[in-house]
C-alpha cells in the first residue's frame, strides 16, 4: 500500500478543523469535481454543494481517528462526489444514462450510508436548536459549543450568579433533549 505523507498531513489538519488544510483541499480538488459535475448536467452551485458535503464526509472520517487512507485523497474525494452526485441525479430524476467515468474510483457506499445517518442526526439537532428559542439557544451554544464556563455565561446573560445560570441551562437542555429525542424516535 502506498503512503501519501502529504495526504496524511492534510487529514490531520482537517481533523483539527484547520482552515489552511481546507484551503489546500479546495485548491487541489475542486476543479476536478466541478468539471465532473458540469459535464454531467450539473451547475457550479451543484458542484460547490456536493464538494462541501464530500468535505464533511472526509472530516467525519478524519476526526473519527480510525480512518486509514487506502487511496489518494483526490481519488477518495472524487469517488465520494461521484456517488453523491449520482444519487442526487437519481432523486431529481435527471438521471439519463449512467455517467461513465474515466478516473479511478474507490468504493465509498458504506461510508456514505454512515454519513447519511450522521447527517440525519445533525439535522435533527439543528432543528431542535432552531425550536427552543432564545435565550436557551444562545445559552446552550455558549456552554456546549463555545465551551464557556458558567461564571462567564452568568455575566453575559445577566444572571445573578453561576448557579442560577446553571439551573437555567439545565432547563433549556431538558427541552432540547425532548425536542431531539422525539424526532430521533420518530426517525427510527
Amino acid at each position, binding site marked *: 500500500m502506498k503512503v501519501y505523507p502529504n495526504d496524511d498531513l492534510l487529514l490531520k489538519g482537517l481533523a483539527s*478543523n484547520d482552515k489552511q488544510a481546507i484551503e489546500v483541499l479546495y485548491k487541489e480538488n475542486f476543479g476536478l469535481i466541478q468539471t465532473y459535475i458540469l459535464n454531467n448536467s450539473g451547475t457550479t452551485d451543484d458542484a460547490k454543494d456536493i464538494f462541501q458535503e464530500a468535505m*464533511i464526509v472526509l472530516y467525519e472520517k478524519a476526526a473519527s481517528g480510525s480512518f486509514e487512507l487506502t487511496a489518494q485523497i483526490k481519488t477518495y474525494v472524487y469517488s465520494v462526489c461521484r456517488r453523491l452526485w449520482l444519487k442526487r441525479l437519481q432523486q431529481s430524476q435527471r438521471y439519463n444514462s449512467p455517467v461513465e467515468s474515466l478516473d479511478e474510483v474507490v468504493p465509498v457506499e458504506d461510508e456514505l450510508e454512515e454519513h447519511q445517518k450522521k447527517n440525519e442526526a445533525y439535522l435533527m439537532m439543528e432543528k431542535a436548536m432552531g425550536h427552543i428559542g432564545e435565550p436557551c439557544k444562545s445559552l446552550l451554544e455558549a456552554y*456546549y*459549543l463555545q465551551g464557556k464556563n458558567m461564571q462567564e455565561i452568568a455575566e453575559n446573560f445577566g444572571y445573578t450568579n453561576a448557579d442560577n445560570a446553571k439551573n437555567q441551562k*439545565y432547563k433549556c*437542555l431538558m427541552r432540547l*433533549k425532548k425536542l431531539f*429525542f422525539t424526532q430521533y424516535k420518530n426517525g427510527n
Partner: protein
Amino acid sequence: MDEILLLDAAERYLKGEMNEQEKASFEQMRRTNPELDQLVVEHHFFLNEMNRYSSIKSFKNNLHETQAKLEAEGVLKEKALSAGAKVITLYKRYKKTIAIAASIAGITSLLTYAASNLVAPKADINQVQELSKKIDDIKKTTDAQGSELNKVKDDLKVPNVKFKSSGTAFLIDAKGYLATNAHIIKNSSTVVVLNSKGEEYKAGIAFIDNTKDLAILKIADSEFKPVPLPYAISKSTTDIAEPIYTFGYPRNDIVYGEGYLSAKTGFNGDTLTCQIDVPANPGNSGGPVFNENGEVIGILSTRQLETEGAVFAIQSKYIYKALDELKKNEEYADIKVPSVSSVKKMERKLQARKVKDFIFMVKGN
C-alpha cells in the same frame, strides 16, 4: 428540580468532574437504580451528538469561509461547460491505441486482399453456365410450388368479403357449435369466426331465431380442432346479486368485464332475458355471461340505450330450447352441451384464462 440535580450529576460524572468519593457513590446509585442508569446512558449519547453537532457546525463555518475567500481571490473559477471535453479526453487517452489499431487494420486488409487474389480460383465459363441452368431449374420448382400453394390457399381461403357486422360467439359443443345473437348474422351469407389467438374459421348458420335473438353456428372448416369445453351451460337461472363476468370483442382484442345479475327479468318484464350490470359495448353482443362457477347463464344481447349500465342477457335455458328444436334435424342430432364446469371453484383469473380460448369474434356480411 430533582431532575435538574440528577442531570447535573450525570453530566459531571460523564465529564469526569466528580471526585473519587462522589464518583463511587454515584456509580453505586447507578447500579441499583436502572432509571438513573438509563439517564446516564441517554445523556452520554446526547452529549456525543451535541459534540458532533458542534464540531460539524464549526467545520461547516470554516468551509463556507474558505470557499468565500477562495471565490473572492478568484481561485475557484466558474467554468463554462465544454461540450467536447469528454471526447477530447478520450481522444488524448486513446490516441496511441487508435493509431496502432488503425495501422493493424490497414495491413490486415491489404494482406487479405492479396491472399484472396492469390487463392481464389479463376471461374470456368462452363461451370458458370451450368450454375445458371441450375438456377433456372430451381426457379421452375419454386414457381410450381407457388402455384400449388395458391391452389391450397384458394381451397382454404375465407372468401374475400366485406363484413358489415361483428359480435361475439362462444362454443357450446366442442365439435364446433357456437351460440351467438341472431341480429349479428341476420341476412349474412358468409359468417366467419375468429378466436383470441387470431385463428379464423368459416362457419355456417345452423339455427336462427330472430324473435329470441338467438342463433347457433357450426364451424365448417377442416382446420378446426375440437377441444373439450371447460365451462358448462346452466339450465337454471341465477340469483339476483350473484357475481358474473363476460368476455367479448368490442374491439379486435378479447375484453373481460365483470358485474352482477341485477334482475331476473329483462326490459319491461321480459322473461326471456335477465338484466345484468356489466360494462358492455356493441361488439359484446352474443358473448357468454358466466357465473362464479364458470357456468354460462346467459348470452349478452341488448343494451338499453338510455340507461348506462343496464345490459340484458338471454337466459341460457333458451339455448337448450333452441337445441331441442335443432336436434329434430338428424344432421344435428349429435350435439351435446357440457353440463359440468371443469373450472368450478377455480380462482377467477385462472377460470378466465381457461375459458377465453373458447370465445370467438363473429363477423357477418
